């Protein structure tokens, strides 16, 4: 099963991170008019690297902690506004819209990669 894990890990990690990012940016857009709300986001590249970098170390005790991280441990940071507003809200709709669109496109791209991998695997299994 390790080979299959290796085959799908990159895409599944990317998908969970993209999903998480979609929820966070969706929250920013939902709170675009709420005073004092601070926009958040995750650094996809850093989170992805940390989630993929688990290495080959074997855990021999339940007290051992994972090196690197998972999609769930990705650090959620605060966005620095381009022009802060008076009500303390740091959501800038244009920024969020662009980030949301970018994220959705990447999500779809990752889905296509995943589908490609699965169909390659199927073809290999059938001997086509």
């Amino acid at each position, binding site marked *: 099963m390790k080979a299959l894990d290796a085959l799908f890990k990159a895409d599944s990690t990317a*998908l969970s991170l993209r999903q998480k990012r*979609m*929820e*966070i940016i*969706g*929250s920013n*857009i*939902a*709170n*675009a*008019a*709420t*005073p*004092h*709300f601070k926009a*958040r*986001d*995750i650094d996809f590249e850093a989170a992805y690297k940390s989630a993929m970098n688990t290495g080959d170390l074997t855990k021999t005790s339940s007290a051992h902690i994972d090196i690197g991280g998972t999609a769930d441990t990705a650090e*959620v940071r605060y966005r620095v506004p381009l022009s802060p507003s008076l009500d303390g809200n740091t959501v800038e*709709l244009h920024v969020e*819209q662009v980030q*949301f669109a970018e994220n*959705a496109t990447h*999500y*779809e791209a990752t*889905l296509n990669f*995943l*589908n490609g991998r*699965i169909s390659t695997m199927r073809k290999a299994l059938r001997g086509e």
Partner: protein
Amino acid sequence: MTNKLTIFDVAGRSMAAQQVRLNTVASNLANAASVSSSPDTVYRPIKPVFETQYHDVMEKTGIATVDVTDIYQSNATPEKRYAPSHPLADKDGYIYAPPIDQNAEMVDMLETSRQYQNNIEVLSTAKTLLLKTLNVGK
């Protein structure tokens, strides 16, 4: 908040909040010309109070939606107008108009409608992606 907030909850509740805001704008605009014979009975403009509802107490996940926690009734002073021939004028000949800034209300209305649209966009994108994810491997 113990239940997990999905992106559908986030966008849906935000749309509900924007809807309340749009209702308050409509009420204010509808009553902009409702004059009264006493400053106590004149219509008072209403404003919703938005408050962020976080998915987790520690605010670690960054997932948050918005709720209307209160409808605030403005206590701005009503506008006093001298109109002795008006049927509602008081004994000194004054009528009282609600302190509504119609231009500000129109701006509010546009902002609300734009944010409502944004939430719909989030919702439909999330839905499309979810449906595509369901078809992975087919």
